[in-house]
C-alpha cells in the first residue's frame, strides 16, 4: 500500500478512535460546565451503557436499533438517578471530596458490572461489523465510518438542542450563572439532573458505536482517562472543542503507533496532554474565566 493511502487509513482510524474519546469528553465537559463536578466515573458509565445494549440485544433478542435506542435511554435515566440520589448530596463540598466520590463510584460500577456480566469481553452483531468499503487497495471498515458518522450526527443534534430549544437554552443559562437562572424561574436542580442524563446518554452512544470495533468489557471505562486528555486539549469550552481534542489525540496515537518505536503509543495521549497543558494551559478553544478581586 502506498504511503499516502496508509496515512489516510491511519488518519481515519485515528479519527474514529478520537471520536469516541471526544464523546466521552463531551459528557465530561457538560457536567463540569454546569456543576464544576469532575466526573471520573464517566468512562464507567459508558461501560454500563455498553453492557445495557448487550443485554437488550442479546439477552432480550431485540432488534439492533431498538436495543441501542433503549440502551441509550436507560443509561440516560441512570445518569439522572445518579445525580438525584448521590451527586446532589455533595454539592458544596470541596472539589477534592467530589473527585473521590466519583472515583469511588467508578469502582462500584466496575465491580457491579463484573458481577452481572462477568469479566470476559462480549459483543453482538451490528449492521456495521465485517462490512467494508473498498477503494482499490484502500479498505475502510463500516465500523470506523459509523463511529465518525454517528458522532457527527449526535453532535449536530446536540448543537441544535442547546441553541434552539428552550430546554437547551435553559441548560446553558443554568451552567453559566446558577443564581440568575433560579431568579428566572429555571428549576436549576432538575436541569442539572437532566444534564447528567444527557451526559450519560452520550456516553451510552459512545459505547454502542465502539462495540463493533472493540467489544464490551468491564475495563472499557479506562478509555475515560484518555477522554480527559481530549477534554483538556479542547479547553473545556465547547462541544466542538472536546471533539477536536479527541480526534487530535486519536490521530496522534495512530501515527505514533506506526512511526515511532514500539511502546510509545500508549504514552502518546498523556504526552500530548501534558505538553498542551504546559504550552497552552487553557487548551485549544479556551474560555478563560478569571476571578475578579
Amino acid at each position, binding site marked *: 500500500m502506498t504511503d499516502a493511502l496508509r496515512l489516510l487509513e491511519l488518519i481515519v482510524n485515528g479519527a474514529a478512535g478520537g471520536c469516541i474519546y471526544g464523546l466521552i469528553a463531551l459528557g465530561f465537559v457538560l457536567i463540569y460546565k454546569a456543576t464544576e463536578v*469532575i466526573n471520573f466515573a464517566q468512562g464507567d458509565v459508558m461501560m454500563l451503557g455498553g453492557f445495557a445494549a448487550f443485554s437488550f440485544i442479546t439477552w432480550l433478542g431485540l432488534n439492533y436499533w431498538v436495543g441501542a435506542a433503549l440502551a441509550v435511554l436507560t443509561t440516560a435515566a441512570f445518569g439522572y438517578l445518579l445525580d438525584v440520589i448521590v451527586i446532589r448530596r455533595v454539592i*458544596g*463540598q470541596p*472539589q477534592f471530596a467530589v473527585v*473521590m*466520590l466519583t*472515583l*469511588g463510584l467508578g469502582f462500584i460500577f466496575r465491580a457491579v458490572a463484573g458481577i452481572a456480566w462477568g469479566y470476559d469481553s462480549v459483543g453482538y452483531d451490528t449492521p456495521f461489523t465485517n462490512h467494508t468499503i473498498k477503494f482499490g487497495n484502500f479498505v475502510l471498515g463500516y465500523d470506523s465510518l459509523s463511529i465518525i458518522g454517528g458522532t457527527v450526527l449526535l453532535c449536530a443534534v446536540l448543537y441544535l438542542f442547546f441553541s434552539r430549544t428552550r430546554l437547551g437554552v435553559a441548560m446553558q443559562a443554568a451552567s453559566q450563572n446558577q443564581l440568575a437562572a433560579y431568579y428566572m424561574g429555571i428549576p436549576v436542580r432538575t436541569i442539572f439532573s437532566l444534564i447528567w442524563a444527557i451526559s450519560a446518554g452520550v456516553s451510552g452512544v459512545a459505547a454502542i458505536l465502539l462495540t463493533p470495533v472493540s467489544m464490551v468489557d468491564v475495563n472499557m471505562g479506562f478509555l475515560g482517562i484518555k477522554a*480527559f486528555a481530549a477534554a483538556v486539549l479542547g479547553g473545556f469550552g465547547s462541544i466542538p472543542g472536546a471533539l477536536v481534542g479527541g480526534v487530535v489525540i486519536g490521530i496522534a496515537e495512530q501515527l505514533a503507533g506506526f512511526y515511532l518505536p514500539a511502546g510509545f503509543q500508549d504514552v502518546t495521549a498523556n504526552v500530548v496532554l501534558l505538553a498542551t497543558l504546559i504550552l497552552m494551559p487553557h487548551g485549544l478553544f479556551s474560555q478563560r474565566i478569571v476571578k475578579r478581586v
Partner: protein
Amino acid sequence: MRTLFKTGYRQDLRIWRHPGDILWYGLLGLVLLALPRLLGEFYIGELGAVYIFAIAGVGLMLLTGYTGLVNLGHAAFLGIGAYTNAVLLTAGWPYLLTLPASALLAAIAGVAIGIPTLRMSGLYLAIATLAFGQIVASVLEKWDSVTHGFNGLPVPIPEIFGFPIQGATGVYYTALVLLVAVLWIAANILRTPFGRALVAIRDSEVSARSMGINVALYKTIAFAVAAAMTGLAGALFAQYVNFLAPDSFDVLLSVQFLTIVFVGGIGSLQGVIYGALFVRLLPQGIALVRDDLPGHIGHLPGLEPSLFGLFLVLTILFQPTGIYGGWLRAKAWFQDFPLHRASGFRRQRTYARSERT
C-alpha cells in the same frame, strides 16, 4: 473535661499541648517498639506496610490536604523511590546512602511536575498529575536496561553497619523510625510560617501573594517535600515486597493514597495513620470474613474494589471529615457528657468556593 492553662506563647508552639498527651504517646511508642516480640511475622509485616503507606500519606496530606494541590499520580513518586533504592542497592551502595538518594530523586521528579503545573488549578492540575503518573509508570515499565521492565527487579537485603535489615521485623523497625521522623517534620511544618503559607495558598492564592508569599516557590517546595517523603516510603516499599514489578505503581495505587488522606480526615496527621490502617487492613478484613458471608458474595471477584468504592462513597456522603473527624466528634461527646447538645454534632453545611466568581 480538660482545660489548658496557658502561661506563655511557647506553649502554643509545642507539638503536644497537654502534658498528658506526652504520657499517652510515650506509652504508645513503647508498645509499638515491643510489638515484634508479641505478634507473629504476618501481622508485623502488615503493620510495616501500614507505616510505609502512612509515610507516603503524610507527603500527600501536605500536598493535597494543606496546599490544596490535588495529585492523582502520587504512586509515581513511590515507584521512583522504590526502583532507585533497588537499583542502587544492587550496585552496591550502602543503605544509608540509597535511602536519601531515593528521596532526592523522587523530589526531583516532584519539582519536574510541580513547575509546569504552577499556574494550573484544581481540574487541570488533577488531570496533569494523572498523566504524569501514567507516564512515569510507562517509563518504569519500558526502561528495561535499568528496571528490567516486566521481568521484575529483585531487591537485595540492605545492611546498616553490617547488620542486615531483613524480614518483616527489619522493615517494621525502619518504617517506624522513618514514620516518626516524617511526622515530626510535618508537625514542624504545621507550626511554622511555611505551613501557614501553604494553607494560605490553598485558601486564596491572590491574598497569599499580597502577604508576601512567593506562591510559585512554595508550591514547588511543597511538591518536592511531598515527593521526597513518598520516595522514602518507596525505598521501604521495595524492602517490603522484595521483588519490584512496574505495574504496581498505577492509578489504582494513587487512588489508594488519596483514600488514605480523605478517609483518614483531610487536614490532620493523625488522620493519615487512620487512613493508612483503613486502606491496608480493609483487604485483610474482607479476607477474614469472606467465608462467613451468605451465598456466594464472599467469593465474587471484584468484591474488594467494590467494597473499597462503597466505603469511599459512604464516607463522602455521611462522614466527609473522615475517621479523624469522627474521632473528634466522639471525643467532644465524651468530654461534654452529659451536657452535650445535638446541635453540637450536626454537620454544618459547607460551601466550596467556586472557581468562577
